[in-house]
C-alpha cells in the first residue's frame, strides 16, 4: 500500500491515530462500566454470587490489607516524629497519623493492594472463562455475564472496600501507636486520647467514600480487561497485567480528584 501522506505530516497522523485510539478505549470502557452499573442497580440480582464475591474480595483481602496498614502506620509515625523534630512538633505524631491514615493512606493503600490482588484476579478469571467459552455458555443458559459475573463483583467491591478501609484505618493507627509507645516513648493513654480527640467524622467519611469509588474502579477494570481478553495464556496474562496497572493508575487519579473535591467542599 502506498503512503500518500507527506513525511512532514506523518507526526500529525500518529498523534491523530493515537488520540482516536485513546478516545475509543475510553468510550468502550465507559460503555462497559455503564452496563455494569445498570446491571448492578436493577433486578434480577444473583445474591449468592454477590455473597461469594464479598467473601473473595473482602474477607480474603483482610490479611494483606491488615499487614500493609500496620507497616504504613508504623512508618508514618516514625517519619512524622523525625520530620517533626526539626521544628519541635514531635508531639503531633498521633494527630497526623490518624489524619493521614483516615483521610488518605488507609483508602489509598487498600485500593492499591486490591488493584493487584483483586483486579488482576478478576481479569484472569474472566479472561480464562472467555477463552474456554464459559462466557458464551453463560449466555446460552440465559445468565447474561453482565448480571451473573460482572455486577456481583461490582456490588461486592463497592460494599467491601469501605469495610476493609475501616479495618485498615484501625490497624494503621494501631501501627503508629505501637511504634510511638514502643520506641518513641509516647504515653499510651495520651496517644490514644490525642488520636480520638483529633479524628473527625469528616476524615473517616472522606476515606470511606474514596474506598467505595476505588471498589468500583477495581471491579470495572478487572471485568473489562477480562472480558476483552484474547485467546491463550498470553492473552489472559496480558488482561491481568492491564487490569492491575489500569486499576492502580485510576485509583491514584480518582484519589486526587476526590481529594480536590473534598477540600473544595470542606469535607
Amino acid at each position, binding site marked *: 500500500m502506498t503512503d500518500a501522506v507527506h513525511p512532514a505530516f506523518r507526526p500529525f497522523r500518529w498523534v491523530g491515530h493515537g488520540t482516536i485510539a485513546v478516545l475509543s478505549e475510553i468510550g468502550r470502557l465507559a460503555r462497559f462500566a455503564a452496563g455494569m452499573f445498570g446491571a448492578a442497580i436493577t433486578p434480577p440480582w444473583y445474591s449468592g454470587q454477590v455473597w461469594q464475591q464479598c467473601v473473595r474480595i473482602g474477607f480474603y483481602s483482610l490479611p494483606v490489607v491488615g499487614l500493609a496498614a500496620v507497616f504504613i502506620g508504623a512508618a508514618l509515625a516514625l517519619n512524622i516524629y523525625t520530620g517533626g523534630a526539626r521544628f519541635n512538633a514531635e508531639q503531633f505524631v498521633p494527630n497526623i497519623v490518624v489524619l493521614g491514615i483516615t483521610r488518605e493512606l488507609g483508602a489509598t493503600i487498600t485500593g492499591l493492594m486490591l488493584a493487584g490482588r483483586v483486579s488482576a484476579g478478576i481479569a484472569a478469571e474472566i479472561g480464562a472463562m472467555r477463552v474456554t467459552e*464459559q462466557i*458464551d*455458555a453463560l*449466555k*446460552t*443458559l*440465559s445468565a447474561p455475564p453482565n448480571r451473573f459475573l460482572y455486577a456481583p463483583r461490582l456490588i461486592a467491591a463497592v460494599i467491601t472496600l469501605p469495610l476493609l478501609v475501616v479495618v485498615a484505618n484501625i490497624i494503621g493507627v494501631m501501627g503508629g501507636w505501637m511504634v510511638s509507645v514502643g520506641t518513641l516513648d509516647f504515653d499510651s493513654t495520651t496517644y490514644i486520647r490525642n488520636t480520638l480527640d483529633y479524628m473527625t467524622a469528616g476524615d473517616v467519611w472522606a476515606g470511606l467514600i474514596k474506598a467505595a469509588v476505588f471498589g468500583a474502579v477495581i471491579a470495572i477494570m478487572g471485568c473489562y480487561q477480562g472480558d476483552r481478553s484474547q485467546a491463550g495464556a498470553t492473552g489472559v496474562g496480558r488482561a491481568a497485567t492491564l487490569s492491575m496497572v489500569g486499576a492502580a493508575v485510576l485509583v491514584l487519579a480518582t484519589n486526587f480528584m476526590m481529594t480536590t473535591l473534598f477540600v473544595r467542599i470542606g469535607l
Partner: protein
Amino acid sequence: MTPAEKPLLKLAGVRKSFGRNDVLRGVDIDVAPGRSLVILGGSGSGKSVMLKCALGLMTPEAGQVIFDGQDVTRDTGREREAMRARVGMLFQSAALFDSLTVWENVAFRLIYADKLKRSDARDRAIETLRKVRLGEEVANLRPAEISGGMQKRVGLARAIAANPELIFFDEPTTGLDPITADAINDLIIEQVRGLGAASVSITHDMASARKIADEVAFLYEGRIIWRGPVASIDNSGNEWLDQFVNGRADGPIQPAL
C-alpha cells in the same frame, strides 16, 4: 424437509466478516423439528461462526436468523432469552463452569433461569446425569476432576437438562478416542430422539456425521455448497464434498497449512 414442514431454525443469507476476512458469505440453511442436520466443513471454514450467529453469540452483518417463525437476528432482550430457553448447546470444549460442581453445571439453567429450588434442581441434574451414563458419585466433583469424555457427557447433560427443542453440537467428538467418540454419538442420538428435538451439529469427524445425521450440508468458503441426505454423501457428485469425505489432500480444496 417436506414443503409442509415449517423449519424450526432458518438462516437466510447470513454474512459475517472479521476485518477483511469474509467468513460467512451468505449462508442459507434450515432445520425442521425433530431432524438432525450435520454441517461439515474444513478447519477455518466458518462452522463455529455460523453456529454463534444462529445462537445470537455473534450478530451477522447481513441476513436473517429465524427461530420458530420469529426473526431473532438482532434481538438482545427477552425475545433472545425466550429463544435460548428452548435451545441447548454442547460446546467443543464442553465449557463447564469450573467453579461449580458437576450437578450445579447440569442444573445451571434450572436454578438461575427457571428458579427451581436447589434440592429439586439437584434431583433433576442427577436424573439427567443418569441419562448420559454418569452416576451420582460424579455429581459433587468439579469439572477438573473428571476425564475429557466425562466432561463431554456432563456438557450433553447440561444441554438437555431443560428439555430443549433444538440442540447445537459444536464438534462433539473432538479430542476423544474413537470408542468414547462413538459412545458420545450414541448418547446424542438417544437423547435427541428421546426429546424429539431438532439438532444442528458441526463437525469434521466423518464417522460422527454418518452416525448422527439425517441430513448433511457442506460449508465451503462461507457458503453451503451442497446439502442432501446422509446416505448420499458418498455419491454426491460434488467434487469438494467428495474430496472432504474421502480425506484427500489433492482436489479443489487446498489444505489449510
